[in-house]
């Protein structure tokens, strides 16, 4: 009898502790192949939750973040997703292209608002993926804006695409980038595949140079982008390179050193050094408080924070119960929602779940990332 009483009290206490908690799942890659950008991203997500919890949580309810390091493996992502559902999360923040695509059918069926760090355009179409949302310009939009930049700035108006032969690598260019280049009259003169782990890109760059590409768009991550820039410098190739967002950050400058000078990059997110941006000032203060030893944050941290900031803000703004339908309805009412300048204002509609369509083009000058445009869109 005594034992039963203790058990009942324990169950009561546990349920009391969990009552009033809003559970949010997060799939992150800390130790897998994209861990170099995944870890700072996850830190941004975590800090955002901490900030919200210290400021009233979700309308007085504490946020419980269920974070799983799925190591960029789709089966682990599916297992974690099922566990999230069992634990009754109200929304999930995800990570890669492959796993977001694999989960999309479940997400639609289970009506779980799902934010992704994959900027693949096709998962932002609400007809096929009504519960998927994205904060950040899609890969296709990044390519379109870079092509528009070439159209405006280029003399020969010729371009080459450099990509890794994966869904992530092809996403910005085929068919979106190809079609847009044709539409605006930028001539696509070459396409080159460079593996994500390539140590040498000599043959690809020699071919690109022979094709006469004035600009080349690069869809890789830091390491391959650094190989490309260093080999281009070694070979004396005068093509100008514009990297999409995962190629552009301080790590690239550390890796490529002088070869990174003059390199352009697309980013929907502000960088740590832009202390004139309200959100960056806010993050500097937040980091002083949470992590006094940290003096620099990669852009990936800012990406993670911004995306989670939008998701948690939506939870706060949702009227009534936190159901998938209600949260979706709130998100679809977002119009020019401010992320304190960490991104361009965020807008979701019933027709489009691309939260951000604008980005700035930056250039590396004296090892600093300097914006060379204001926020621009492809439209």
């Amino acid at each position, binding site marked *: 009898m005594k034992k039963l009483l203790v058990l009942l009290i324990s169950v009561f206490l546990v349920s009391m502790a969990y009552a009033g908690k809003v559970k949010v799942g997060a799939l992150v890659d*800390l*130790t897998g*192949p994209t*861990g*170099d950008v*995944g*870890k*700072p991203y996850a830190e941004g997500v975590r800090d955002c939750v901490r900030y919200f919890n210290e400021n009233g949580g979700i309308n007085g309810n504490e946020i419980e973040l269920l974070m799983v390091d799925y190591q960029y493996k789709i089966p682990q992502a599916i297992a974690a997703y099922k566990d999230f559902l069992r634990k009754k999360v109200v929304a999930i923040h995800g990570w890669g292209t492959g796993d977001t695509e694999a989960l999309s059918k479940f997400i639609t069926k289970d009506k779980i608002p799902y934010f992704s760090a994959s900027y693949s355009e096709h998962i932002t179409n609400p007809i096929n993926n009504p519960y998927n949302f994205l904060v950040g310009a899609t890969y296709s939009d990044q390519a379109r804006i870079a092509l528009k930049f070439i159209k405006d700035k280029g003399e020969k108006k010729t371009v080459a695409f450099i990509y890794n*032969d994966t869904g992530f690598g092809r996403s910005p260019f085929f068919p979106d980038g190809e079609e847009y280049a044709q539409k605006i009259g930028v001539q696509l003169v*070459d*396409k*080159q*595949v460079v*593996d994500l*782990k390539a*140590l*040498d890109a*000599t*043959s*690809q760059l*020699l*071919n690109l140079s*022979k094709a006469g590409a004035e600009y080349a768009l690069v869809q890789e991550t*830091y*390491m391959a982008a*650094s*190989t490309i820039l*260093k080999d281009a*410098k*070694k*070979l*004396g190739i005068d093509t100008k390179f514009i990297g999409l967002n995962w190629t552009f950050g301080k*790590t690239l400058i*550390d*890796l490529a*050193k*002088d*070869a990174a000078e003059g390199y352009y990059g697309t980013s929907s997110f502000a960088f740590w050094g832009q202390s004139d941006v309200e959100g960056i000032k806010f993050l500097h203060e937040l980091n002083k408080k949470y992590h006094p030893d940290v003096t620099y944050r990669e852009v990936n941290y800012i990406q993670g924070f911004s995306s989670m900031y939008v998701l948690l803000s939506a939870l706060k703004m949702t009227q009534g119960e936190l159901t998938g339908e209600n949260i979706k309805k709130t998100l679809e009412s977002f119009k020019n929602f401010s992320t304190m300048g960490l991104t361009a204002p965020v807008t979701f509609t019933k027709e489009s779940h691309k939260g951000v369509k604008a980005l700035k083009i930056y250039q590396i000058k004296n090892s600093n990332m300097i914006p060379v445009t204001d926020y621009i869109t492809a439209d």
Partner: protein
Amino acid sequence: MEFFLQLIVAGIVMGSIYAIVALGFTLIYKSTGVVNFAQGELLLVGAYICLHLTVEYRLNFVASFIITILFMFFFGFFIEKIFLRKMIGEPIISIIMLTIGLSSVFKSVVQLIWGTNTKTFPQIFPEEPLIVGGISVSYVYIFSIISVSIFLALFTVFFKKSKVGIAMRAVASDQQAALSMGIDVKRIFALSWAIAAVVSSVGGILIGNINGINTSLSQFGLKVFPVVILGGLDSILGAIVGGLIIGILENLAGGYIDPLIGGGAKEVFPFIFMIIILMIKPYGLFGTVEVEKV
């Protein structure tokens, strides 16, 4: 012609790095009959230690390089002594499983100590390339070829002239006969692991200087598999020749076939070539043909 020569030079450079990492596989297989699936992690450990000494202790790169080599020698030695020694006589599949297990452990320990962020060596080699007859080569690549050549020359002398080297060849050739001649086979096994750890770490340090280091560097250990298979699993000469062939073929395929098919030949062609060679020579270019008499 300049295009062709540039491709060949780039191929030789990459091939020399493949060769030295492949050498680690071959040395262990030749002496002990074990395919070491933790080869990539030996590369990882060596690269991180050299980086740590250079960045955290601010040691001169050459000093860090030498200390790393010494450390890796003992590291390899103790891996054999602590883990592999107990497996002598056990089924080969158990030993392979053990090396796979070791690879996970080493990778996890590296992640625990150094994290997963990409780290870079400080500027060690001049950034401007050396241009000879219109062909550009980075200084880090020149250092790669020189260090690989030195190691290969040292091994050739070691195996041909030194007593221990000859003993290692004897063990590789016939363990029973070597034992009956009084050769300490266990010591030879440990030495094979020690040397394999050293050459792998050299590969890791070179790659780290070219492209930075994170834990994905260990994948390079498996990337050289076609090199080892092509050369012949138990042939040191095969590892070197196989490395150079794959390096050159990759670049020629990238230069001449990629434009025709729209890319990707550079990654795939070495494997196609390897399959063709294996169909003609099932033990690789220089592998020992096993003769079984019934």
